[in-house]
């Protein structure tokens, strides 16, 4: 009988020996992936026929970059990271050691000085450096500001950690005021402050808070009750169209239609949930996805009511609780009543506080519900459905309440969205939105309200920041549009964050029920989204 021995495997190549080979593999794969898609480009010529444009140099650059990246990672990155772990263990600085090395006082002072100098020179930057370099200088200023702010946060981390909710809410409540004040000082007049704050309050503040609210609503379904819902945007659409249709057709006020939209969405949640909630896992996921698509297709095709893909325009604005309005032509326009200068920023700031209030309502309800029997039943259901049933919990009604509650908050957010935009169309309610909301919930660490808010800020704020990178045009030429790369980077960021933190930003839970003392539970001990 022949005795076979496995070949010796213990000859471990050094990183330097492995790196060139790995780089070659990476280069070959990159070449294979990109050869047709980047090496060639399909374009229409004058007679509308497709022709191929060759871009081999771009392909070569990308392949070489991939190879170099892989080489550096295998040769230096991996040994460095491995080494870092040993150092961390030796110094006992886990897990903050990287951060303490990154945030140091000299760096902080350097950043402050950079920001101060560049702000001081703000007016004359273009003259001093020319438009190209000035763009870089502004980018540098932004980076230095972010670094300085992050350092401050880092030095006060224990304090912040202890008072996170209070600090967070205060910061959010003061945000528009600070923005207006800073911009007023910067621009030299109050009017300039209000005008400049539009972008910051609307694009960053309101946009992010809408997603925070949607993600907190979906969190009830996915994070607490553990039901995977891929069609959450349907309830958002129901809420938006509820306000859009009733507001334009019957002239009803936002304050009546807000609860109506929530009730309508909850009703649809029950309607969908009732027949399908006995499905398990991925069957439930696909039915919710199908439901989301059905709603969108009906909105597109039922032209008599929804005006099809053209959407509904002229949705009335929210009034200041019926006392003042934000329409310049009205006699009780806010600026006339309060006798101040006319500005469109008041409406945005009011909307900001409105959505902030709705978000806090969602958070409050979620926190309170988690302590009530129904919330505990949700979490028990997520952990073990069979155990739940044997303990006498009616799983169908428990799931239905979770579905309806989540849907209701989606409906609130939807009616707010319609009021903010003044225009709704089925375009806003595509599957991608559901996917983004779900991604925020999962990236935030499912069930953790703070984590979800952070995830929304990072993902939505990050894509908004990409709109600002105009200086890249100087690098890549004037026909380079950074906005085009927004969703590409968004998708890649989703993958990278998930690989980096598979449990989400906040991977531990505060238990709602405990014996003697409350100890945070690692997220690894809780189940999610198994239906």
């Amino acid at each position, binding site marked *: 009988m022949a005795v076979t021995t496995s070949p010796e495997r213990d000859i471990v190549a050094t990183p330097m020996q492995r790196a060139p080979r790995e780089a070659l593999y990476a280069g070959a794969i990159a070449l*294979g992936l990109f050869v047709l898609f980047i090496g060639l480009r399909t374009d229409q010529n004058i007679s509308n026929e497709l022709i191929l444009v060759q871009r081999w140099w771009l392909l070569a650059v990308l392949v070489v970059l991939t190879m170099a990246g892989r080489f550096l990672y295998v040769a230096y990155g991996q040994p460095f990271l491995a080494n870092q772990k040993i150092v961390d263990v030796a110094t006992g600085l886990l897990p903050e050691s990287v951060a303490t090395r990154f945030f140091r006082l000299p760096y902080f002072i350097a950043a402050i000085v950079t920001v101060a100098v560049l702000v001081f020179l703000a007016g004359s930057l273009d003259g001093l450096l020319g438009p190209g370099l000035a763009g870089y200088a502004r980018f540098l200023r932004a980076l230095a500001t972010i670094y300085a702010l992050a350092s401050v946060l880092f030095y006060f981390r224990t304090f912040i950690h202890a008072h996170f909710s209070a600090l967070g809410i205060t910061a959010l409540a003061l945000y528009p005021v600070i923005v207006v004040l800073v911009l007023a000082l910067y621009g030299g007049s109050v009017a300039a402050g209000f005008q400049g704050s539009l972008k910051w309050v609307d694009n960053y503040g309101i946009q992010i808070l809408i997603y925070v609210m949607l993600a907190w609503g979906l969190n009830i379904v996915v994070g607490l009750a553990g039901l*995977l819902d891929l069609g959450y945007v349907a309830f958002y659409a129901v809420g938006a169209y509820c306000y859009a249709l009733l507001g334009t057709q019957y002239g009803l006020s936002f304050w009546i239609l807000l609860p109506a939209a929530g009730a309508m969405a909850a009703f649809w949640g029950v309607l969908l949930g009732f*027949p399908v909630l006995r499905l398990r896992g991925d069957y439930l996921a696909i039915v919710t996805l199908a439901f989301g698509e059905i709603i969108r*297709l009906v909105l597109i095709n039922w032209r008599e009511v929804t005006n099809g893909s053209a959407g509904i325009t002229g949705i009335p604005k929210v009034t200041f609780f019926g006392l003042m309005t934000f329409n310049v032509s009205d006699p009780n326009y806010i600026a006339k009543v309060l006798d101040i200068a006319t500005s469109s920023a008041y409406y945005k700031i009011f909307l900001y506080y409105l959505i902030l209030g709705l978000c806090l309502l969602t958070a409050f309800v979620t926190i309170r519900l988690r302590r009530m029997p129904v919330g505990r039943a949700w979490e028990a259901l997520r952990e073990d459905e069979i155990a739940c049933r044997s303990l006498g919990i009616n799983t169908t009604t428990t799931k239905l309440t979770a579905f309806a509650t989540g849907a209701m908050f989606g409906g609130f957010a939807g009616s707010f969205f319609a009021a903010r935009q003044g225009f709704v169309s089925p375009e806003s309610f595509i599957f991608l939105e559901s*996917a983004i909301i779900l991604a925020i919930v999962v990236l935030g660490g499912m069930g953790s309200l703070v984590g979800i808010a952070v995830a929304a800020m990072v993902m939505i704020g990050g894509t908004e920041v990409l709109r600002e990178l105009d200086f890249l045009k100087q690098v890549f030429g004037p026909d380079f549009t950074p906005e085009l790369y927004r969703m590409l980077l968004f998708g890649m960021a989703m993958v990278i964050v998930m690989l980096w933190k598979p449990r989400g930003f906040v991977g531990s839970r505060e238990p709602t029920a405990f014996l003697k003392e409350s100890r945070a539970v690692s997220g*690894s001990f809780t189940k999610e989204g198994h239906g």
Partner: protein
Amino acid sequence: MQYFVQQLINGLTLGSIYGLIAIGYTMVYGIIGMINFAHGDIFMVGAFTALIVFLILGALFYSVPVVIALLVMMIVAMLLTSLYNWTIEKVAYRPLRGSFRLAPLITAIGMSIALSNFVQVTQGPRNKPIPPMVSTVYNIEGISVSLKQIVIVIVTALLLALFWYLVNRTSLGRAQRACEQDRKMAALLGIDVDRTISITFVMGAALAAVAGTLFLMYYGVIAFSDGFTPGVKAFTAAVLGGIGSLPGAVLGGLMIGFIESMWSAYFSIDYKDVAAFSILAIVLIFLPSGILGRPEVEKV
């Protein structure tokens, strides 16, 4: 009657394409229990690859016989699309195996967004029309059957036969089925689980690439966003047939194809997708694990 048979043929063509894509979903689900959301975009990448190969052939040679052109398109598309799916599995799904269930789902959604936008960025956002490759239409007793449709059905049937042989008669297929039943046990018995999973992704992508090529040939146009709708419908088909079951995926694909063509023929073309999705929901209410799916056994 003629009209009905005509719609039956249209439905069969459409269903074949959905079936080919659905197999990729169902195989991946069967083996690692995850919904591969990027599969629809893999299909789109396959179609785009075929489009570019078609243009290259047109630019290099004066005229190429259609059969050879189609074959070359299919083979190149299969190779490159497999490379895409293989890389995606390696980069985005493998590190998360053993992590909790929703993690790979989110990376799959991220990959789907990244892939479609990658194609948009590199190839432009417009629809890409090609001149018709095959335009022969046969007329049999008032029913018109185009050569395109015959090609689609024949290619699908051939591939399914080959695929059936691979899964049921080769050691590779045996390894796949073993991994599907119990990955840990299969690993103990000497099956390279990682390799088997990679091959599953490659096979799924190859079938999706063929579906993409056939889609391009049938409709003559492709755009970067065209992965989503066929992808969702193929996934619906996989669930309808019972996810994890290969004959179920084909059956589900055909059903979705028939529902769609019948609904647009007899009722309204606007609501054909609504009909397909509604029938999915209704079927699942009565058969909670699809038509051919094994009912899930609950172990306590």
